[in-house]
């Protein structure tokens, strides 16, 4: 069904139409939440909360990018969830290895087409990037997730986080510079193309 028609129906309270939109956008919203939160369970909670808020507030949607509108709800949900976690910190219930260390990301979520070595490398790189993202201040992290990871343009990102375009530009620049600095520490994990480029820059 055509998206505007689904939105229209959802605005009239039709839950089925809204759920169709949920199925379309749930991966994007979950990934955004995951990169902002850095934890799958919290990201899932924030995503669910975002869709719930979106349904309740869908009558206030007045056109424009629906994706940006949804992104606003998910970033707000992430901020709320982070505030909640700050008040009541929890210990993750991740399975542990024989050494007592927490296991890596559940394998069932990984790309099945990858070899075990590639999986390990990808996991390591992903963890390195996530670590660097987590090091960023929340506002910077949100902007970099929206633009560089979700591929939104500045205008959409500005609409999603409700800040002026100039702020997006500035935050994104600062975030990229900090990320670049942080990722230097994980040089050996970076893909060959980046390594070569980096080496040429170092010399």
């Amino acid at each position, binding site marked *: 069904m055509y998206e505007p028609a689904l939105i229209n129906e959802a605005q009239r*309270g039709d*839950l089925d139409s*809204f*759920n169709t939109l*949920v*199925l379309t956008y*749930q*991966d994007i*919203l*979950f*990934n955004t939440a*995951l*990169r902002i939160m850095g934890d*799958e369970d919290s990201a*899932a909670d924030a*995503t*669910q909360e975002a*869709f*719930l808020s979106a*349904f*309740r507030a869908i009558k206030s949607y007045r056109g424009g990018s629906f994706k940006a509108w949804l992104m606003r709800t998910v970033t707000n949900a992430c901020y709320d969830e982070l505030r909640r976690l700050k008040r009541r910190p929890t210990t993750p219930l991740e399975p542990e290895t024989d050494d007592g260390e927490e296991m890596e990301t559940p394998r069932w*979520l990984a*790309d099945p087409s990858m070899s075990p070595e590639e999986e390990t490398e*990808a996991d390591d*790189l*992903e963890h390195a*990037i996530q670590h660097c993202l987590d090091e960023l201040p929340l506002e910077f992290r949100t902007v*970099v997730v929206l*633009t*560089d*990871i979700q591929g939104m*343009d*500045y205008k959409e990102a500005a609409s999603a986080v409700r800040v002026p375009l100039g702020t997006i*530009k*500035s935050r*994104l*620049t600062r975030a*990229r*510079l900090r*990320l*670049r600095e942080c*990722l230097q520490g994980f040089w050996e994990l*970076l*893909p060959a*193309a*980046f390594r070569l*480029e*980096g080496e040429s*820059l170092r010399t």
Partner: protein
Amino acid sequence: MTQTPSFRDVEQLSAYLDGQLKPSEIARLESRLQADPALASVLKDLRQARGILRQLPQRRAPRNFTLTPKMVGLKPPLPRTYPVFRFATVLATLLLFFTFATNFMAPRLVRTAAPFPYGVGGYGGGGGGEPELSMEAAPEEPAAPALEAPAAKEPAIEEPAAPALPVPAPTEMAPSADDSARIEPTLGPSEKSGVQGAPTGEPFAQQAEPDQALQTQPPKPLVSVTLQLVLVGIAILSGLIALILRYTAIRKWRAKAK
């Protein structure tokens, strides 16, 4: 000329990477990039950072985040008659309680209103506190008049020096000792009847008559039992109808949701 790029320059480079610059700005920046290796180096750094971020795999959502009617607090559409029956149930129940309360309170109100003229008359200055006692005594001990004679004698037995009953002239009973002797038995909890018993003679006889009259006639309820039964019937019937309407509406709605 090569110098460390300013934050403004880096910001321009970042926007250039994302294609957010105007054509005139692009042309100016590109010419600077050719002339300034430091600026070109920063551009490469930024491009690299952006490229690495784009390497992040997109995860599948661990589960579906679709909403259920319960989650969003949607309620089944109830029939238009439902609030009418619900209101009728509430109203009938309230009225029923009101009728019970009225029937319960009415005899008390009637009885408390009656003894006032008699209770006040007997004691002159001391009468301020006494009517209250007599008010309490009237409904709780309707047989009080029958016990008045022995009760009246008790103070005389306990304190023979106080000639409460035989004194012919009440005006001579001014001494405070006598007063206390007479008031004491009236205030004692076990001697409530003493209030009425002390002034033997005509006032007491007048008081006995209306009390006996009240006692012999069973109190008639203000609200008839029939009306109460009707209210009970309305409350139960409308309540049942409302419940059935609600139950059927919810069942239909759940079946439709499935």
